[in-house]
Each structure stands twice: as structure tokens, then as C-alpha cells.
């Protein structure tokens, strides 16, 4: 009975991508290795791109893969590798928490963080369970792609933000290049 439903496989794929996304995010939270969390973030970003496809946003899914996976994640990996711990065993210059036998006392804010995040999720879930969004009663479009609408909107209604964001990207490029210079006066 269920096998003949054409949406059956689609729903299985949908929930599989949801599980992939959440497992990736939880791995970022749980693991202590910075490199592992970078790769788990890759898993999450790919899962979110797949969920964009399910929500009918094909252009955004491709942009997500190009910008996040191709740009931001590579930057993060570079950041992890450039700031790895020094291999010298000279313990006098190393900061306290990187010394092998240093005992770190004091709260890390672990329970506070988990409690705050759990409370936030509980509150949002209560809100979503009680909410009824009027927009969800509207009919869904059956356009094959969203690219032409996005292109028209970017060139007509959102032309000013589009130009401003290009200046922002230029400023960020120059600023990041200047900040990462070797001999900067801080």
C-alpha cells in the first residue's frame, strides 16, 4: 500500500536529509576536535542545501553549496590549520590551558549553554505547535525553477541592495586582506 504512494520515497529522502543535518550539527556541538567539527559542519551545510531543494529553492541550494561549502568552509579549514597549536614543548611560554597537566577549574558555562539552548528550543517548539501560519494556506507554485523570478527581482525591486552588497563584498575583501597582513600595527 505504502509502496505505491509516489511521495513515499520523497518523504524518506526528506527525513533522511533532516537526520543528516541534525547529526552534523550535534557532532559540531559534541566533538572536542576542531577539525572533526569542521567536517561535521560540511555535513550540515550539505543537508541544509538538500532541504532547500525540497522547499523549492533550487538556485539557493546551488548558492549554498558554492558559497558555504566552497568558500566559508574552506576558509574555516584554513583558519583551523593556521591556528593549530605550536609543536614546541617549552611549557613556560605556552598558555595555561594548553599545558599538559594543567587543571582547569571554574565553570565553562556548559550547563548554562545547554539549558539556554534547550529552553529556547522548547519555547520555539511550543510556539510552532500552537501557531497557524496563514501563508501556508496559499497554493504552492508549480514553476519548474525559481531562477528567472530571482533574476527579475534582483534587477528590479532589489537593485539597490544588490549594488550595496557588492560594495560590502569589496570592502570585506580589502579589509580581510589588510587585517591578515603580517606587520599590522594593532
Amino acid at each position: 500500500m505504502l509502496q505505491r504512494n509516489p511521495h513515499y520515497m520523497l518523504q524518506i529522502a526528506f527525513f533522511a536529509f533532516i537526520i543528516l543535518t541534525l547529526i552534523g550539527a550535534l557532532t559540531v556541538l559534541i566533538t572536542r576536535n576542531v577539525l572533526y567539527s569542521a567536517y561535521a559542519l560540511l555535513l550540515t551545510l550539505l543537508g541544509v542545501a538538500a532541504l532547500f531543494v525540497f522547499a523549492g529553492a533550487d538556485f539557493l541550494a546551488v548558492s549554498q553549496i558554492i558559497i558555504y561549502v566552497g568558500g566559508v568552509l574552506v576558509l574555516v579549514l584554513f583558519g583551523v590549520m593556521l591556528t593549530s597549536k605550536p609543536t614546541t614543548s617549552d611549557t613556560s611560554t605556552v598558555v595555561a590551558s594548553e599545558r599538559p597537566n594543567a587543571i582547569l577549574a571554574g565553570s565553562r558555562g556548559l550547563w548554562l549553554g545547554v539549558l539556554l539552548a534547550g529552553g529556547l528550543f522548547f519555547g520555539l517548539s511550543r510556539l510552532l505547535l500552537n501557531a497557524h501560519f496563514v501563508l501556508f494556506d496559499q497554493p504552492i507554485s508549480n514553476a519548474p525553477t525559481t531562477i528567472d523570478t530571482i533574476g527579475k527581482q534582483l534587477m528590479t525591486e532589489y537593485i539597490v541592495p544588490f549594488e550595496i552588497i557588492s560594495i560590502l563584498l569589496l570592502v570585506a575583501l580589502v579589509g580581510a586582506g589588510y587585517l591578515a597582513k603580517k606587520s599590522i600595527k594593532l
Partner: protein
Amino acid sequence: MNPSLSYTLLFVAAALFSIGLAVVITKRHAVVVLMGIELMLNAVNLNLVAFSQYDPNRLQGQIFSLFVMIVAAAEAAVALALIIQVYRHFKTVVLDDLTNLKQ
């Protein structure tokens, strides 16, 4: 996609946002805190896209989340440049150890 799956997307976005908030609060490595911020931005994008499906003529949500993505990319570039400078200065990027204004 029927509305019940859209509600599911909203729950996933809420979970992603909460996990990102927990990462930002509990982690001590600056790069991992940046990853938490990226997770939260992704959750917001997911919300916007879930609603934008029902607005096919203007697609305001998708265009807004496109702008969010671009700003997130610029933010990540500047933040990593700052983190590399901090590492050169303090020889660590663990946030709890960055207690001096001048060293």
C-alpha cells in the same frame, strides 16, 4: 511540498538554531564559535526559504536569504583574518585565555 512538511522544516530550523546557540556558548575555540554562528545563520535561512515557497511571485524570503548568505561569507572572511591576527599576537585562539588587552 505540503504544509505539514513546511512545519517540519520550521522545527528543524528551530533545532539548528538552538544547537548553534549552544555551540556559541559552550565552545572555547574561536573558530568553533564562528561555526556556531554559521549554524544559526543557516537555521534562519531555512526558515525564510520554508515560508518563501508560498510566495512564488516575489520570492522575498529567498532573496533575503541570498543576502544573508553573502553577508555571512563576508563576515567569515573578516572574522578569520581577525582570528589569525589574534593567534599571531597571543599564540592561542582559546577564548578563555585571551584576557589581556596588551601583552
